[in-house]
């Protein structure tokens, strides 16, 4: 059946393929088994090492990813603080601070309101806008300077008299569409009232450190506060604070700084 020229059957072929191992098929046993024995002990440790290395690498990768993620978050926050104006920094530090800062904006405005209609507008805008977006804050910034220009000296809340503050706003604000709003803002403000927020006054020093002029005029503070783009974080609070627009610049600002300091 080994003669290729002879016609074999399939059965014969299968028989041949199933025949026991031939001597020449087992001739290399010692060589191969020797090499297998040599490979086998080496294989186990290598495999184990490889697996350990893999696991360690994977853990390191995970840790690195977590670290990068957390650091990037911090970096992002830091970036936000840095990019904002000095006064705004306080607000960015924390949500709580943000709220306070929002309050400041209206306060300053109120002071100003006595001098011009535009300031009144500012007040109105301040509350809701702060809540909404950064763009709004930009608006505030642009408005603030205008308001500030004429009103810096008009700060009423210096003596801490709420009634006097409201009265002054009522008298100083020319009759018109913004008059009622300005007075209302002043009336709703905490200016001159003694309350939990008082401690903020002490913290005003922080602001002063950032900007010396702040203490003298609420105006200075106002821009910072206004910058408060921060407002978005505390929409509700900012709205509520917005009603406090009548507060004195320092008073409001002190709130911001104090909370931010925390």
């Amino acid at each position, binding site marked *: 059946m*080994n003669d290729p020229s002879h016609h074999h*059957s399939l059965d014969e072929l299968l028989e041949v393929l199933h025949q*026991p191992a031939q001597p020449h098929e087992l001739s290399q*046993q010692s060589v191969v088994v020797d090499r297998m024995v040599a490979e086998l002990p080496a294989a*186990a440790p290598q495999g184990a090492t490889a697996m350990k290395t893999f696991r360690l690498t994977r853990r390191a990768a995970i840790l690195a990813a977590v670290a990068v993620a957390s650091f990037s978050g911090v970096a992002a926050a830091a970036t936000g603080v840095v990019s904002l104006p000095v006064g705004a920094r306080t607000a960015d530090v924390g949500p709580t601070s943000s709220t306070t800062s929002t309050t400041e904006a209206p306060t300053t405005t109120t002071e100003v309101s006595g001098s011009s209609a535009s300031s009144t507008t500012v007040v109105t805008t301040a509350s809701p806008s702060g809540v909404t977006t950064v763009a709004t804050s930009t608006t505030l910034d642009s408005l603030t300077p205008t308001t500030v220009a004429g009103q810096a000296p008009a700060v009423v809340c210096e003596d801490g008299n709420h009634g006097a503050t409201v009265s002054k706003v009522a008298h100083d604000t020319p009759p018109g569409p913004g008059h009622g709003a300005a007075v209302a803002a002043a009336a709703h403000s905490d200016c001159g009232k003694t309350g939990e927020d008082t401690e903020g006054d002490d913290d005003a020093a922080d602001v002063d450190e950032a900007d010396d002029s702040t203490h003298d005029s609420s105006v200075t503070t106002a821009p910072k506060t206004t910058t408060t783009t921060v407002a978005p974080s505390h929409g509700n609070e900012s709205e509520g604070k917005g009603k406090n627009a009548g507060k004195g610049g320092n008073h409001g600002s002190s709130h911001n700084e104090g909370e931010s300091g925390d």
Partner: protein
Amino acid sequence: MSGAAGEQARLDAARAGDREALGDLWRSHNAQLLRYLRGRHAGNADDVAQQVWLDVARGLPRFAGDADQFRPWLFTIAYRRLVDEWRQPRRHRELGMESPPERAIDDGPGDGLEWAVATIRRLPPALADAVALRVVADLDVSEIAEILGIPPGTVRVRVHRGLVRLRELLDPTQMDVTAEPVSTMKGVS
């Protein structure tokens, strides 16, 4: 010790690095492995088989199967080695080198075996794979399907067609082979 238990004990001993157990494993499977490799165009079947056994030694500590699963695992390694081998000649041809000449049908010892594997080599590759793993390696359809990465039904069809084709090759007068079902062939279930 019963056959199955003995096989398992031998495998465990080989896994632990026992030289005698490794030798037993080699003796039990090397002949089938060589025939399979020769039937599938391995340029140098002895060298490829040696590489397969070294792969087995390296992978044995991690091999979690029992004695029944050892042979499918061995031929899985062999098949992958073959695939690597087939790629090399192609590279040789691309470089202008000739692929190794096929063995003559009747040269060397055991020329009956050479004739048999040479006949399998004449099959189209897809059919030769299925037939060699079924007939030479004695694996079942599901094991072959897993090795080749094809559905079991496809394996059955290829084995059937391969055996029909072999019959045609062995007896050219039986060109119309469709009459006889493959399942009646000896050694093929």
